[in-house]
């Protein structure tokens, strides 16, 4: 037996590199063929457009003249523009507001739906509904509730406060409105991810903690919170990225107003691209938005990496 297997194992070493490559390709051809449609589509409709995006961002659309190459002028304008500074501020306020409201609510709901009580399944289903509805639709529902004249919330709040209450007319109010709407939409996904983390914690840990005399708060702080760190992290990352990029929810609610108070970066891009057809300028905002998203992703992985070391 040994004499038969020896020449077989030596065989590849004797082959010419070219034949080995051909053999490897033939053996590997199937996965490449299977992947071909995906790769062709992603290169032609994502990679090449991305390169065009960079190219267009260096141009200005001028009426009658067409596109003129202007170098980095668009970015120069953006960086010195007070409106773009307002866009970035609105984006950060939006992101912070959504996280502050939705994460504790999601955590609370996740703990509730992770128990084995009867009826929990039905509650979980209802809790998930906001997330399956289109942002434009939920924005419309929120507008209806908060209309200055006919909104039930407006009427109830005016009655409670004793003076007229118009959320959509002030900058702070409008910002609160887009945050409330987005937190309402975002908490189900966060809840789902966190709940999956909670249910994977072995029950014995809690029993051992109870034997050691740990209270509910202690159990939460020492077991639940540290062991759901990763799902919590992915939930916060996903929602942060979506919130930073959001255009449709905000546009449908406030169109960016009053003034530029709620004009987040996505809404600005939406307006420049699809309402004013400023292709060059819109492209430079597109690159800014991609940079912003990458920044968020990098920051989160930095934080996760540091947590791992500690």
């Amino acid at each position, binding site marked *: 037996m040994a004499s038969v297997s020896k020449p077989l194992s030596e065989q590849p070493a004797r082959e010419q590199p070219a034949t080995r490559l051909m053999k490897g390709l033939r053996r590997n051809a199937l996965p490449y063929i299977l*992947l071909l449609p995906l790769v062709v589509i992603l290169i032609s409709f994502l990679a090449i457009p991305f390169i065009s995006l960079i190219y267009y961002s260096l141009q200005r659309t001028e009426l009658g003249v067409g596109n003129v190459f202007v170098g980095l002028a668009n970015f120069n304008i953006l960086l010195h523009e007070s409106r773009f500074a307002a866009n970035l501020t609105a984006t950060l306020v939006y992101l912070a507001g959504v996280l502050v409201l939705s994460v504790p609510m999601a955590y609370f709901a996740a703990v509730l739906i992770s128990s084995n009580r009867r009826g929990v399944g039905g509650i979980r289903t209802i809790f998930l509904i906001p997330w399956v509805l289109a942002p434009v639709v939920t924005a419309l529902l929120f507008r209806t509730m908060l209309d200055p004249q006919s909104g039930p919330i407006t009427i109830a709040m005016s009655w409670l406060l004793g003076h007229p209450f118009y959320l959509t007319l002030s900058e702070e109010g409008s910002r609160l409105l887009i945050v409330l709407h987005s937190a309402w939409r975002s908490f189900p996904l966060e809840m789902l991810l966190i709940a999956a983390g909670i249910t994977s914690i072995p029950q014995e840990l809690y029993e051992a903690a109870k034997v050691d005399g740990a209270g509910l708060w202690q159990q939460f702080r020492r077991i639940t919170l540290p062991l759901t760190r990763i799902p919590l992290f992915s939930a916060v990352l996903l929602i942060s990225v979506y919130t930073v990029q959001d255009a449709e929810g905000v546009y449908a609610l406030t169109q960016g107003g009053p003034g530029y108070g709620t004009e987040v970066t996505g809404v600005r891009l939406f307006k420049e691209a699809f309402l004013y057809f400023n292709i060059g300028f819109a492209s430079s905002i597109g690159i800014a938005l*991609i940079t912003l998203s990458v920044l968020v992703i990098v920051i989160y992985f930095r934080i996760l990496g540091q947590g791992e070391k500690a």
Partner: protein
Amino acid sequence: MTRTRWMFAWFGVLFILLIIVFPMYWGLRTSLTENGVLDFVPGRLTLMHYDGLFAGGFLTNIQNSLIISMGTITFTLPIALMSGYALARFDFPGKRFSAVLLVLPLLPAIAVLVPLILYMRGLGIYNTLYSVILAGTVFALPYCTWMIRGFMLSIPREIEEAALIDGCGPIKALFSIAIPLAAPGLISVAIFTLISAWNNYLFSFAFTTKRELQVVPAALLGFITAWGNNYGGMNAGAVVAILPPLIFFLIFQKWFIQGILAGSSK
């Protein structure tokens, strides 16, 4: 002690239920009453807003939404299935680049839409439903492929290997063994893609300018700016837009939830 705890928990449940259900209840109520009636439970119901909606050509928008959702899934699922299978079952040089599929869904689609508008013009499909289906497929593919790869990885390799030893080709193994075993996962991917495609308005808004080519959410966005205070009409449209994904979700929610969790944890 435990009693106060449960009181607290149930108060929390009721509070969140109220926050979720009230906007939807109010939308339904508004769509069924005359504008200006503000009673919490209206005395008289009317279908006038729905009549007005459909008289205004809303049926075309629903039809567009259906065509685009079905079109997107028809192209996305086979391509994602082939690629997901290749990534789960074969080792080949360059495979590590597949991590790109995880990052792509995190980047803003809206940014690439700007050059894509000019692309669609060049292809001659700007202002047609084809461009919306194409964009829907392009942006659904990375996530769907990654999810299908996960499902394929979770079914044991041994069954397929046994079939391969028995002389079954890899393509036949895919169709007669891997696909049936991964069926629950494939269904959840399909449902996720359908709901996302139905809810998306960005592609329709970017690539079509005529109202008769728009999908339901894009038409609703138009109502917001054009109709002003006609909340009855707008909410009738919202109810129509909500129903398909809601019914779909309620029927298939178990698969849907499993799919999301499998896709996000791997």
